[in-house]
């Protein structure tokens, strides 16, 4: 029992440190890549290739003044960044990063906790993140924040449906909700669910971008219309929490996509964790590529796209999969 507690605590620590470092360097990667997309160099002054830039940014944010607007709802205002930040980290609890390893005589699963309803847990937890955005928008006492919050809630509602439906096809085929077993079923390259559920994968990818409020679905923070949307009034560490939360969400969604569709940690030659990181890195790059390519959708376009294209497609996909699987 004690060893279980110690091992779990260690695993949690390692995962949190890895995720936060990943978030920091995801910002670096994004700035570097977007820079290159725009013929710029991106950060290159702090350390070699600007690699110390995230640390410099962190130090800067810590020393900034923490501002609370006069007509803000103080308690909710303080709570919102945490509500955004915690669920983003929680979803890593069930993602398997690698195979079972033996360390000092203990057999350790490379997953914090192998819930048998892992996917449900992830979907429940990631959709909690929107409360942070809505609360932040509502409690800031600023019209821009409010608009951002409202947009975000409407967007989440519309895309949550297709998001949930997009993976049902996989679940129908796999017959399990545990991420570990899902990965186990994708051991060979052509068993990856991306080949068995291509429509589901595309739907998942699109909805995931919308779920994490990233371009081209970044209506909630639309800097050209709403200043910065829901986090306009935030500064200092609270802003940093929103920022880390966003990137943690991105990495979480990429990890889930890797686990469900791209065979998780399976891959030849390299260790499982490395393969997992490579696949997540690929997803993050696509995220940034999307941001560099597509303009932001208008509000009604977003709604039309969500309800009239994605939702029927997802339903159709589920029904077809079910029919094919049944007969």
């Amino acid at each position: 029992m004690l060893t279980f507690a110690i091992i779990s605590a260690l695993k949690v620590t390692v995962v949190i440190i890895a995720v936060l470092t990943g978030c920091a360097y995801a910002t670096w990667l994004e700035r570097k890549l977007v820079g290159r997309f725009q013929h710029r160099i991106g950060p290159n002054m702090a350390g070699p290739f600007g690699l110390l830039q995230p640390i410099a940014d962190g130090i800067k944010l810590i020393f900034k003044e923490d501002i609370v607007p006069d007509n803000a709802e103080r308690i909710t205002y303080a709570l919102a960044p945490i509500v955004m930040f915690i669920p983003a980290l929680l979803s890593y609890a069930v993602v398997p990063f690698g195979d079972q390893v033996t360390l000092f005589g203990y057999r350790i699963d490379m997953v914090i906790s192998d819930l048998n309803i892992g996917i449900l847990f992830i979907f429940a937890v990631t959709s909690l993140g929107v409360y942070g955005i809505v609360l932040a928008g509502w409690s800031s006492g600023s019209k821009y924040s409010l608009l951002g919050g409202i947009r975000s809630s409407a967007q989440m509602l519309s895309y949550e449906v297709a998001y949930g439906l997009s993976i049902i096809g996989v679940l129908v085929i796999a017959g399990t909700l545990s991420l570990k077993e899902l990965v186990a079923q994708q051991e060979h390259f052509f068993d990856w669910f991306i080949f068995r559920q291509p429509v589901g994968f595309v739907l998942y990818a699109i909805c995931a971008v919308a779920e994490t409020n990233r371009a081209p679905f970044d209506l909630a923070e639309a800097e050209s219309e709403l200043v910065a949307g829901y986090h306009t009034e935030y500064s200092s560490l609270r802003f940093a929490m929103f920022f880390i939360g966003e990137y943690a969400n991105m990495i979480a969604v990429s990890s889930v996509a890797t686990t469900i569709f791209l065979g998780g940690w399976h891959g030849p030659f390299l260790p499982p964790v490395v393969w997992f990181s490579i696949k997540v890195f690929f997803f993050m790059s696509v995220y940034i590529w999307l941001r560099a390519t597509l303009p932001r959708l208008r509000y009604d376009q977003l709604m039309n796209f969500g309800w009239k294209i994605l939702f029927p497609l997802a339903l159709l996909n589920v029904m077809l999969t079910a029919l094919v699987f049944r007969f």
Partner: protein
Amino acid sequence: MIDVIRTIFIAFPKGFYTTLKHLFIKPVTIQYPRVKKPMAPRYRGLHYLEIYEDGTERCVCCGLCAAACPADAIYMEGAEKEKSERYAKIYEINLLRCIFCGFCEEACPEEAIFLGHEYEFSNDNRDSFIFTKEQMLANRPVKEKPFKRIIRRVRRIF
């Protein structure tokens, strides 16, 4: 429906291909304080006063540059040497007033004042922007032969 299909299967890949192509183009950034772009030959920067090859100043303090100056930035006081040669005792340009139009350069009958390529002369107090004669003499570019330089500048042959 046709529109949607065209968007998804033609427009989207085209757009993504375009941005991907630009990812591999060399950045146009110039790392400014470390790397400096060569200025255009006709660039009008900080002024300098030209001298004859024997080292005497060309300026005779006729005041035409000050008269031509639309911003009224030039202040000069003349004096005479023993052989009744005029020279500028005081020649000051207020760089905060100067609009770098180059009229002084055009007005000068002795081909004495020119606008060089120097553009880094920011400072933190107003007094430092009074550009004196000594500074202008010291500001001459040293790379080319003086005569060639003058011809190039005044005739605007590039």
